Each structure stands twice: as C-alpha cells, then as structure tokens.
C-alpha cells in the first residue's frame, strides 16, 4: 500500500462519518498540503457525501400503535393449550428416565430415593415390576412418539 493510499484510508475514515478535513490528523494535513492527488481525493469524497445526503421523511404518527396492535393480535392467536406441550415434555422425560433407570446396567445409587418413590407408586398403580430392558426401551420410545404427536397437535393450533 502506498503512502497516499494509507492517508486516503485514514482521511476517508473521518469523512465517511460526516467529518471534515479539520478533523484529520496532523500527519494527514501535512501530507495533504503537499499532495494534489490526495486533495482531489478529499474533494471527491466531500462531493460524494453531499450526493449521499437525502432528506428522510418521518415515520407515520401511529407507528407505535401499529406495532403494538400487531403484537396484541399475535398474542390473541397463540394456542390456548401451551401447557400441553410442557406437560408432554415433562411426563415423557420422567417416564423415559424411569425406564432407563430400570435397566440393570444403568442403575446407580443416585436413583435410590426415586426408586423407592416409584416402587410405592407402582404398588399403588399396580404396575408390573418385572419388565425386560427391551420392553422398557420400547415403552420410552413409544412415549416419545406420543409426545411428538402431541406437540405437533399443539403447534397446529397456532
């Protein structure tokens, strides 16, 4: 990059932000004094600034009201059962965790408390205790499928 190019870049930094040659660094001003090519550059840049200027009209007076009305309308059209999706995630997640926990190789002491709670629930709900790992995995997958269907159903309401 030549000296002139470096100075021109520095000067354009100032001019592109609406600055004037008075704001150039002392080095730039000294260079400008001796370089007709860079003086032309500055003149062209200032002219470009003038050409780029254009009056901008004001936004419509009711812009805020329009935006807020659109937000209101959107909120009114939101699904009435957003809890269904959350419930689906929570329920299927809990059951999937339970199923994985029941597979012997994944069992660990951290599940002991949950185990006792679930065992009590099992006895109350009369859920069979002896289930094979493959059955449990299948059950978890089925629940995920049901959850996905429920989510699509909820979103279809949007």
């Amino acid at each position: 990059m030549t000296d002139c190019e470096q100075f021109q870049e520095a000067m354009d930094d100032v001019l592109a932000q609406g600055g004037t040659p008075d704001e150039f660094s002392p080095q730039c001003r000294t260079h400008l004094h001796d370089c007709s090519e860079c003086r032309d550059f500055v003149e062209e840049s200032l002219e470009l600034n003038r050409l780029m200027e254009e009056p901008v009209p004001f936004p419509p007076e009711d812009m805020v009201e329009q935006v807020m009305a659109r937000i209101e309308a959107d909120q009114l059209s939101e699904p009435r059962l957003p809890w269904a999706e959350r419930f689906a995630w929570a329920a299927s997640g809990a059951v999937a965790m339970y199923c994985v926990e029941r597979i012997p190789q994944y069992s660990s002491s951290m599940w002991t408390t949950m185990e006792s709670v679930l065992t009590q629930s099992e006895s109350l709900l009369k859920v069979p205790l002896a289930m094979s790992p493959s059955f449990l995995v299948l059950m978890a997958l089925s629940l995920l499928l049901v959850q996905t269907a429920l989510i699509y159903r909820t979103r279809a309401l949007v």
Partner: protein
Amino acid sequence: MRKAFSIISEADGQSDHQLLARSQGGEKQAFGLLVKRHQNRLFAVAYRFMKDRDLASELVQEALFRAYKKQDTHSGGSVKAWLTRITVNTCLNEIRKRKRLVFSEDSMDRWLSTDQKTDPAHKAQAGELREVVKSQVEKLSARRQSVLALSALGYSYDEMSEALELSVSQVKSELFRARKKLRETLKEYRS
C-alpha cells in the same frame, strides 16, 4: 397526543436495557416505549434501503414485531444496534425477494440508464450525479449497501460493527471500498 406525551415522559430516565428487561418480564408497554424511542432512526434505516415511505414503514413494523417475538434472545449488547440489525436484515430480505421477482426488467433498465442512455450535456448535473450514485449503490453487495446506509445516518463504527455483526476493521474496510467504488463511478461519469 396525550398518549404519545405520556409515553415519552415515562421513558425518560430509563435506559434501553431497563425497558427491554421490563418488556421481557411481560410489560408490553415498555416495548412500546422502546419503539417510540427508536422508531425515527429505524425508519430512516429502512427508508435508506427501500426509498419508499410506505414500504419502509411496513418493514419497520415487521422488524419491531420480530424483535418483540425474539426479545428473550437479546444477548445483552446495545439495544439500538440489535434493533438496527433486525431492521437491516428485514430490508435486505425484502430486497432479495424483490430482485428475484423483477430481476431481468429492472436490471436491464438500470444498465441502459447508466451505460447507454446518459447524456450529461443535456441533463441537470447534480440530479444526474445523484442518480448515478444511487444506481451504483444498488449494485453494491448487501453488506456494502448496509455500511453505506448506516454511515450516512450517523452510526459510529462501533455501532455499525454491532448492528451488522462485523468487526470494526471489516466495517471500515467495507465502507472504504464502497466509497472508493462510488468515487470511481463519479470519475468515470465525468470523463
């Protein structure tokens, strides 16, 4: 009128971040205050791109609606830059859509008007030069058009960097190249 006045006085003394936090907490009115505060600047940005008052207004509304919908994703930087980014992206998407629709006719006309039909001796030079610059700006990349538009509206390099998700040196470089291209166009036009 009274409503607009009360909105302004309520916004006084609260930063953009405070208003956004209130809005994120469910206070829609706070988002209205943010809109009120930034609408002129965002409208100017959209107008710079679209050159049409109605379209600019429509796109700003769309951008602000999108901003409200994804306000929870705001990462904590400048709210003004964030709103500007959404507005710029909305305008660029619209331009892309329109170019796809009218590409052949529109671009042919532009080429003819700049390269073949110009007759500087018979036209008012200032207006003509402005048109030449405008036409050249439209041929620049979206990124260069964006930096030109924002710099013409007084955005600082830091603000442009945040709004366009570019580094400050990238912004400076893009702006320098864009302006260089426009200066060359002016020179060519004159010669």
